[in-house]
């Protein structure tokens, strides 16, 4: 039920100020998504979508940082191992 999927914003329709909509690309599948709760959304950004509503933008910097930390975890490990041998 709480499934939410990332997608890329292709266009934004602000003609109705109470119901801002966007075309979102989910790996080739286009859907109309309500983006009313993301006032500063821009084309090209990624959003996390649940039942037709964008819950938030996906922060690229934070995503890369998480991945970087987890990558380094392995590098440290390998260095330690090579020092021992």
């Amino acid at each position, binding site marked *: 039920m*709480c499934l939410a999927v990332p997608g890329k914003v292709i266009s934004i329709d602000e003609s109705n100020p109470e119901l801002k909509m966007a075309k979102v690309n989910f790996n080739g599948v286009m859907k109309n998504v309500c983006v009313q709760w993301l006032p500063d959304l821009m084309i090209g950004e990624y959003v996390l979508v649940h039942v037709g*509503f964008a819950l938030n933008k996906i922060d690229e910097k934070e995503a890369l940082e998480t991945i970087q930390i987890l990558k380094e*975890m392995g590098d440290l490990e390998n260095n330690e191992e090579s020092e021992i041998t």
Partner: protein
Amino acid sequence: MKYIDEFRNAELIGNLVKKLLQVTTQNWKIMEVCGGQTHTILKYNLEELLPKKISLIHGPGCPVCVTPLEFIDKAIALAEQSDIILTSFGDMLRVPGSKSDLLNVKAQGGDVRMIYSTLDAIKIAEENQNKEVVFFGVGFETTAPANAMAVYEAQRRNLKNFSVLCSHVLVPPAIEALLSSSEVSIQGFLAAGHVCTVMGYEQYIPLAEKYKIPIVITGFEPVDILNGVLLSVIQLESGKYEVENQYKRVVTKEGNVQAKKLLDEIFEVTDRKWRGIGTIPNSGYKLRDRYSAFDAELKFNLKNIEVEESKICIAGKVLQGLKKPFECSAFGKECSPEHPLGAPMVSTEGACAAYFHYSKRN
């Protein structure tokens, strides 16, 4: 796909598994609250990758599962009326009520429609002014804003033929109920990332303090879940109990302020009954009085229906993490996804169905 593949990456999973083996010295029980996370854990067999000392307990975070049977019966009673179009998300249509389910009502001529977004229900109401359109909506804080938006739009468009049958449940009071129960022994929580995307995580800080338990806001991909477990274990091993955010790419401390504003406009907090668990104080949303014209229970004067649950089903114990699905004598025998006796077998996010699909017995 971007933001999915990276978080299923084998190298990162390997790093996390190694690190977990290094830091774990004691036995720890950690509960993942959300059914979506349970699904990922079973699908990727993550329990196999964890050190033996760590056990994952599957929590009550499947809104389909915890929706009371009598509520499903109410939806069925509405769908059976010839002047009503009943709309809902796909997973609600299969949930068995005490005698039938919504797909069955549809097969017998009822107008039951599966929708993708709550705005579809609004559209259906606009196009069918001679009929009543009811949206059957359950869900946690993740889904509640979408339902709130439907009510808000119905009001704005002055739709008189739209109403919602809604039973929303809230995560923090359920966590508190589990923590204050003497039967349940959990030492760490992975909180549901998508609930927190909307709500933020301020509400969890007093819980972590009061019950001296680490709460890690966690995403839904395998890397996220292992990372959430690792952060919990690091805290547990060093005697810490803080709220930590693993899912920083979408969760902020304050959550989505606009969505929260809308929730507050439409709903107020109320006591809710959770199937298998019982009534938890202040654990749900109901429509505020000024939106009561959109409340299907009032509009159609639905009587309280008394129902009996299956005697052999131990869903309540499963939902609280006290028993694993395969410890139920009916699991995979009288009870299967084709013929579910209890709700955790119905939704793919329910613990029983997840165990059944990925046939995991240990």
